[in-house]
């Protein structure tokens, strides 16, 4: 009997590990879709009007209204009832992974939503502030979103560069911007002030990391920020089943 005891213990631990993993997996898979369901009656659902929704188990704020100037970059239907808002850092890998998903969702929902991007560059990312400045500098020439998409699409290449500025200037050239003006603007205090204001606004609504996504001003819990979770949240806000 003693001969088989170690194998029985090992098998027991293997079964326990697999069972524990399965339980975690089930809770992970259930969270995005189920936790957005709000116990509030459908009559009070914020499906119409761009108002602050009732607290939901899947959201965690904001606890206070945002402060500071609003430099939002908006894409989609400006009058849409539902606003999908991201506080992002161009050098943050999860933001880079989320970007194409958000683009797909934007296209999928079309005029039903508007997408707002705000800067929240993190100190731990060497080029994050410069990238945000590059997007704003392109924005001064009316090409914020083109630079925004380009920065996320090429995140892996410029993130590892020792000096990212020449790469951003190259992107400006590829986007047919006035490169001299872009080169000047990227270091301008005005552009830096916009990025700082966005960060301060984020901090005022409880943003602590990136990507932070809000729907109609209410911050989604990080585990909801998945393609399925975002669709579930948007459908809920749009009054869809």
């Amino acid at each position, binding site marked *: 009997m*003693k001969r088989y*005891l*170690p194998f029985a*213990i*090992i098998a027991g*631990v*293997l079964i326990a*590990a697999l069972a*524990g*993993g399965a339980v*975690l*997996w089930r809770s*992970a*898979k259930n*969270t995005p879709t189920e936790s957005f369901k709000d116990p509030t009656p459908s009559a009070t659902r914020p499906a119409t009007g761009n108002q602050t929704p009732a607290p939901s188990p899947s959201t965690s704020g904001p606890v206070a209204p945002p402060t500071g100037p609003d430099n939002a970059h908006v894409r989609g239907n400006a009058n849409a009832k539902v606003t999908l808002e991201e506080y992002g850092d161009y050098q*943050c*890998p*999860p933001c880079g*992974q989320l970007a194409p998903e958000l683009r797909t969702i934007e296209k999928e929902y079309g005029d039903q939503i508007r997408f707002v991007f705000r800067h929240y560059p993190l100190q*731990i*990312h*060497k080029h994050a502030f410069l990238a945000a400045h590059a997007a704003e500098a392109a924005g001064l020439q009316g090409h914020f979103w083109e630079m925004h998409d380009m920065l996320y699409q090429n995140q*892996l290449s410029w993130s590892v560069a020792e000096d990212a500025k020449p790469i951003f200037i190259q992107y400006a050239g590829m986007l047919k911007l006035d490169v001299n003006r872009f080169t000047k603007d990227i270091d301008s205090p005005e552009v830096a002030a916009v990025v700082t204001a966005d960060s301060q606004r984020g901090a005022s609504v409880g943003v602590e*990391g*990136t990507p932070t996504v809000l729907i109609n001003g209410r911050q989604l819990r*990080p*585990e909801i*920020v*998945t393609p399925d979770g975002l669709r579930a949240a948007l459908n809920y806000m749009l009054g869809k089943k």
Partner: protein
Amino acid sequence: MSPRSDRIAADSRGNANRRAVYVFLAIAALALIGLADSVYLTVEHFAGRAVRCTITNGCEEVLNSAYSTIGRIPLAPLGAIAYFLVFSLATLSAFGNQITRTALLYLVGLMLVFSIWLFIVQAFVLHAFCQFCLLSGAVTLSLAVLVAIERFLPRRS
């Protein structure tokens, strides 16, 4: 040798064996902590959920970096397999198996080298620390210390 010295030698061997069993049990217990940590990270990885740190502030940066996979294989399930192997080898060693004792030494050595490399990546390449990775590193370091104690401290016979 007198019956008394025979008894002393037998007692010493018994003490040494008991000490080795306790060390192997401690190794197995530590491996379970590492296994739980790795299983959690594996599930979060495949579920596509963002892991947020509560103590450090770099979980997303570390776990989504290019260093979190070997080719297309994420490190978390490899860690789970490694900790399960450590648990299995330590359990078998506690029951007196000598081959698994040697295998445990090599496996923990390999894990220690890998953990040191991952720590260097976090500290000097990513400039971000993931608390779950640090826990795994601490567990591996403790495993290495225990294996060294069991293996290299003088044994009485």
